[in-house]
């Protein structure tokens, strides 16, 4: 079930420097969105920018028919989005794409969620689902990374959830100084990843995804990556979101918007 409709903005509040959480009334998304899925949003009436923008579903409030998205103000679109007031509307298409697959049996697996910047929201929804389905909190490790403190996303939410949270920033302004892979190495160094059955889920900038995927491969950990590409349509028709994947007889392109955004890390060809 998905929809394409004008939806009312219920709230649009700053959550950190340059970061907002927008809550939108859209029963279809609120009821059906799964961790890792996204919506295409449109607020512009003209052609600046031309395309809609993809945002991961962050929280769902099915009782009141709302969902929310956390976004970082970067360019033309997110600036306009930040100006939206409750009562105004945004055009929403979604939920779109596939979801993170929870490794089974869920409560016997160490779930390692590796987030970079605005890659955090879908992993929050995943973490929440894991907690709600009874996975012990100590079995959920979130590595949340960003360049600087103010680019960290969903920190408080992960903290509130009570999962094991490892924060890393490249400049050391919050948590440990370094990259998410440093945190992964540390975990590995302490033996936390070996002996365990472990599943990695990651979402963030492409370079980070690649590094995490390589780390996982090296240590033989299964890994799901959520890729970021331009998404002109989000519906699988423009082929502008292609992701190179390995196939039986070479390589091929899959569409991030419908075949993804989540792929098995070993499937993706990193260039």
């Amino acid at each position: 079930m998905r929809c394409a409709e004008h939806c009312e903005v219920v709230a649009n509040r700053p959550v950190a420097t340059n970061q907002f959480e927008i809550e939108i009334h859209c029963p279809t998304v609120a009821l059906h969105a799964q961790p890792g899925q996204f919506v295409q949003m449109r607020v512009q009436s003209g052609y600046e920018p031309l395309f809609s923008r993809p945002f991961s579903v962050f929280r769902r409030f099915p009782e009141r028919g709302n969902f929310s998205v956390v976004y970082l103000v970067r360019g033309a679109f997110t600036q306009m989005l930040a100006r939206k007031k409750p009562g105004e509307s945004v055009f929403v298409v979604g939920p779109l794409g596939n979801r993170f697959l929870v490794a089974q049996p869920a409560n016997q697996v160490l779930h390692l969620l590796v987030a970079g910047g605005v890659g955090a929201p879908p992993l929050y929804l995943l973490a929440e689902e894991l907690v709600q389905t009874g996975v012990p909190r100590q079995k959920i490790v979130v590595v949340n990374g960003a360049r600087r403190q103010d680019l960290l996303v969903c920190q408080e939410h992960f903290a509130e959830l009570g999962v094991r949270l490892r924060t890393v920033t490249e400049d050391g302004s919050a948590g440990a100084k370094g990259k998410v892979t440093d945190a992964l190495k540390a975990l590995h160094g302490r033996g936390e990843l070996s002996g365990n059955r472990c599943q990695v889920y990651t979402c963030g900038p492409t370079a980070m995804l690649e590094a995490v995927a390589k780390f996982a491969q090296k240590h033989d950990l299964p890994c799901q990556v959520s890729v970021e590409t331009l998404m002109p349509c989000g519906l699988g028709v423009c082929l502008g979101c292609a992701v190179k994947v390995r196939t039986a007889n070479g390589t091929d392109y899959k569409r991030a918007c419908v075949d993804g955004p989540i792929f098995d890390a070993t499937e993706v060809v990193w260039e």
Partner: protein
Amino acid sequence: MSEVKLSVKLGPLRLQNPVLVASGTFGYGSEYADLIDLNRLGGIMVKGTTLHPRAGNPMPRMVETAAGCLNSIGLQNVGVEAFIREKLPFLRQYRCAVIVNIAGDSYEEFEQLAERLDGVEGVHALEMNISCPNQEKGGIHFGVDPEATREVVSRVRKRTRLPLIVKLSPNVTDITMTAQAAVDGGADILSLVNTFVGTAIDAKTRRFKLANITGGLSGPAIKPLALYMVWRVARAVKVPIIGMGGIMNATDAVEFLLAGASAVAVGTANYVNPHASMEILEGIEQYLREQGEKDVKHIVGTVKRCKPGNEF
């Protein structure tokens, strides 16, 4: 409210209304089936289809520009056999016209495509995408050379009884030359325009933004150019025209009809708003009512010179 007649006849091709969706912007229809009622479309021009499956160009393949976008998808598609086997059965359930956009690198490929699709149930017309390199002529695009255009169209004409649409490239000095060549070759209908060749550069990284360097420009940016070409071709040839290029709303669509197109195709707008084609259809109907017109064909090509002076 009086009824407005929307069905149109483009030579041998009947459409229940003049709103089609352009090739490459609507997949194989199924992608939109839960969002809009495909039965209400005039027709679906499916993604460009080649003889063999194609993987397409490396990423990045698309980039936004001012009021437009450049694409260099590189004709990624499942190939004609998989199209017939996997995509067509779904489309057969609907009553809108199914137009197969075909592309080849050689005369033979075009001939084989036409032959393969001729008589296949559920295919209502062929649209030839001749904006592709003609390997037999050293890679020059068929669509920019009147002689190659005439030749490839006449060869395809001999292999199919289906209504034949030829899609013109706008990257030419005088589009009426290739238009006439296509008609001479046996085109029943012309569609125009395909995308304009362009590029984009990232100043910071000092690199092209597209892996393929160049791409095709579509969207509102090209509307003035497309509209001009439709108007010129409509006055130069006798066959009906499907107009496209930057149609985002019903007003844009009406402009193409006034310029001389008998039907329109909605392209990039489908990405931006999945309901675009439906809103355009409804908007055309409303426009005709407001203008007191009873039949869409009565407005085709009726644009007049403006009154001189400064009236707003």
